[in-house]
């Protein structure tokens, strides 16, 4: 009983919870900044810059605007961060899935858990009463709305595709662990022709969902002074920045688990080949898995976030909406139809 509680605590606090998210998330953000800079022929900040930024912000005093609702202003960032960290617990790392959490949340739940960080930043921004925040939250909500349709279509296609393949009684599955297990056995989903449009659509959704350039109308610094973050300073601002970094990790790792979940397969065999068994083998496998996941995350970030960032200019909010509901949704819909008719 106590051991279980301790285990849960370790999961939540260290791996794959808070500490892991903190380190990899900020690292990912640093790599992204560096990559964008290199693509634009700039030197760019050091890779550890997000860490410096975070700790510096935490050292500063927070100014609460007189018009703000102090409680909401301070709690919203923490709530968003906690929700994201918990969400990361439900995303398996190839074979490594925490059995106790496998039956807590499925794909559809994850879709809605992803809304909580967005809602918390909206609440935080709204609580300040700033007009910039008003515009920012409106744009944030529209961006979330824009991403929702393609994301839904992608998740439904994946659920149907795997459900049919494993011969589930209902013909569908929404369990992420089932999807990953299926991929470990029969190869990554990206190899299925019918799901390639869905994978592309998901890749295009990532920057929108995380609010990265060119889909960052909600935080347009040059235009509305970071929108919802306009009045934020000090540690709460740092927490929001951290949440943003973790969201990049969440989205990229979700993408990898959905479409490249089979890549970790070989590693277990490799470890067995070296001659390790039992606990040591499991530990080494897990470490290697995490490493592979991180490398893949970096690659996805490079392709899906940094590259897009480097080559495009910021879109207007109505363009973002139109883009996601036409081009990206059409791709995802194509996938759904293909999957549905068993192609």
């Amino acid at each position, binding site marked *: 009983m106590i051991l279980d509680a301790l285990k849960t605590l370790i999961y939540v606090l260290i791996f794959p919870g808070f500490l892991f998210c903190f380190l990899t998330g900020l690292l990912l953000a640093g790599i992204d900044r560096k990559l964008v800079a290199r693509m634009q022929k700039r030197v760019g900040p050091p890779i550890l810059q997000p860490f410096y930024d975070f700790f510096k912000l935490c050292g500063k005093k927070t100014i609460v605007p*007189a018009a703000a609702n102090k409680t909401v202003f301070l709690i919203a960032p923490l709530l968003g961060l906690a929700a994201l960290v918990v969400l990361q617990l439900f995303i398996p790392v190839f074979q490594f899935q925490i059995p106790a959490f496998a039956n807590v949340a499925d794909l559809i739940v994850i879709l809605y858990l992803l809304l909580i960080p967005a809602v918390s930043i909206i609440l935080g921004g709204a609580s300040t*009463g700033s*007009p910039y925040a008003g515009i920012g939250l409106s744009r944030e*909500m529209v961006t979330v709305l824009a991403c*929702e349709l393609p994301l*839904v279509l992608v998740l439904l296609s994946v659920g149907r595709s795997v459900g049919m393949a494993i011969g589930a009684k209902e013909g569908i599955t929404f*369990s992420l662990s089932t999807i990953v297990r299926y991929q470990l056995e029969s190869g990554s989903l990206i190899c299925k022709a019918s799901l390639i449009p869905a994978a592309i659509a998901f890749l295009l959704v990532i920057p929108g969902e995380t609010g990265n350039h060119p889909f960052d109308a909600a935080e347009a610094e040059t235009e509305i002074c970071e929108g919802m973050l306009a009045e934020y300073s000090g*540690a709460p601002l740092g927490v929001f920045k951290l949440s943003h970094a973790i969201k990049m990790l969440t989205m990229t790792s979700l993408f990898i688990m959905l479409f490249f979940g089979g890549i970790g397969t070989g590693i277990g065999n490799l470890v067995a080949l070296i001659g390790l068994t039992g606990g040591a083998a499991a530990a080494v496998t897990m470490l290697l898995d995490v490493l592979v996941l991180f490398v893949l995350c970096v690659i996805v970030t490079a392709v899906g976030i940094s590259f897009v960032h480097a080559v495009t200019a910021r879109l207007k909010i109505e363009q973002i909406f139109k883009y996601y509901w036409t081009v990206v949704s059409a791709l995802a819909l194509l996938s759904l139809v293909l999957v549905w008719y068993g192609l």
Partner: protein
Amino acid sequence: MSHINLLYLLDPLHFPIFSIMLYFLGAFCIVLFGKNRIVRNCIAFVATGLSLTLLCLLIKPIMIQNAILPYWMGYRVPAGGYAIGIALEVDALSLFFGLLIATAVFVSCLYSFSYMSEDDNEPQYYTLFLMLAGGVMGLVLSGDLFNMFIMVEILTFAAVALTAFRNRVTGALEAAFKYLVVGCIGSTCILAGTIILYQQAHTLNLAQLATIIPLCKGTNISIAFALLFIGFCTKAFIVPFHPLAADAHGAAPAPVSVLISGVLTKSGIYGIIRLAYFLFQTMNLGTMQFWLVFLGSVSMFVCVTMALAQHDFKRLLAFHSISQIGYVLTAIGLATALGASAGLYHAMNHTLFKGLLFLTAGAVLHETGTTDLGKLGGLSKKMPHTTVLFLIGAASISGIPPFNGFASKWLIYQATYEKAAETGNIGFAFVTIVALVTSTLTLASFVKVTQSVFFGQLPKECENAKEVSFGMRFAMGILAVLCTITGLFPNMVQQYLTGPAAKTLFHVSRYINAMMGSGYAESTMGASAPEAATRTIETVGVWNPVNWLMLLMIALLAICIVAIASKYDAVRENKSEKVEAKYSLFYGGEDTVFSQVGGGDLFWGFKHNWRHYFSFMHDLHSGIVNDYSLWAVIALALAMVYALIVL
């Protein structure tokens, strides 16, 4: 001289009729003795509270032990296979709806005590209020089609009168008149349908009708079905009757809006279920499923987009109300056990969260005197408790885990998608997509309300607002707690409330036999007797709210400890009377101005892309009663054409 044993009255058999009569008796007593405020409140409290208690006592025999209570008025039991008396019949479905109604009525009655205390004509208010409650309760517990019609008339009548109750409010009279006209078309349809059924079957008893009607097909039966269906649709306000709901909910006092939205729409849904699953047993027809799901999906989508275009708090809530009813209808139209269970679950949640939201809207109206989103703002500092309660309601309706709206919507997504996989029909997959996107649109709409009413800048007019009285907060608190509990324990709810109720939908012959004597259905209907389908409710997905909440709490606690240890809460605040420049909002160097983005303009980026749709919808909802009646007539005509072709 026979000895009358009063203890006989304590038999649970009598509870249903008592729970109906208590409301009417209360209404009657308030007319007689209601001059005094305390007496009046006591009568209303006792009537609503006792009625709820009696129904709660029925949970054990009906929901858990799976009994069905038939009750013949004056003990006139069927003779010679003919129902000659007037009957109540309480199965799990009726009791489920009865519980919803009793809860909503009780809470909104508690709220009324302080909310309506400044109105004149209070006795009349409570009379009508209890009549409305009694009407709906009578409708769902009745086992007689004509009594259902009478109850429909009573509740329509009371609802119209209550809508016009504050007749100085802009639009109250107008809304009441429109509702009366279209509501009367609906009631007349129900009456005409009832009488055509009587002509065919020579009985008005629901159970007996359910044995006779499925056997005789013909023009008359088809027309009767169309008439009854459209009649109950007007009571549920589904598209194309949604403008009436918007008008009526918006104009009525908040506790009445709770009843109209949370209770009256349920009576329509209940009627449709009784009609389609029991009386006509048409739910195994693919086209019938298609139409119900189609109507539901259209309702949920059209109404949520209409809600996005609104700038009045209560009118916006009203459109959302119908949007959520669309979810219920969609799920019920699937004709699967999971779908029925999910639909009933959502119906329950709708009563709870919509009630909560209307009550918070009432609180805002009570304190500021307006519900115009453009004129409100920044109330979270003035009304912190109301804000929290509103946020719970908003999170529930927008389907944010772990509140109840999510639990039921999640089941609906699965039910629709399972149905799609089962039938191989991609259309149901699109229904899932519409449901998922509608949920996010709902969230968008409530973000708008949150920003325009509770956060943002505080306008001058609202500076005198303060927290509402304890009585009102208590009533809202009950609903908020229920919203959370039903969200956290979906399995319990399914096991004890929605599961038994959903199973009755597929055991029609049990319903018939309980009323008419065992073996009646089989002997009368022969081979075509509805078989007792043993359907189990299975979900493919996993969602364990309690575990998730525990994990979230652990994470939040850990983060908070770290944050507090690193002086996260050591903030600089404005202490003096005058606001220092450092603490005032950033306006890009300009003077402070009131520059809040209006509620109507908040989602410009979204609306711009859909401007043609929105302007089309705006023109369509012209507000002319003739147009709405025309929609009703067209809907009736379409339903008749459908029924004549298919049934």
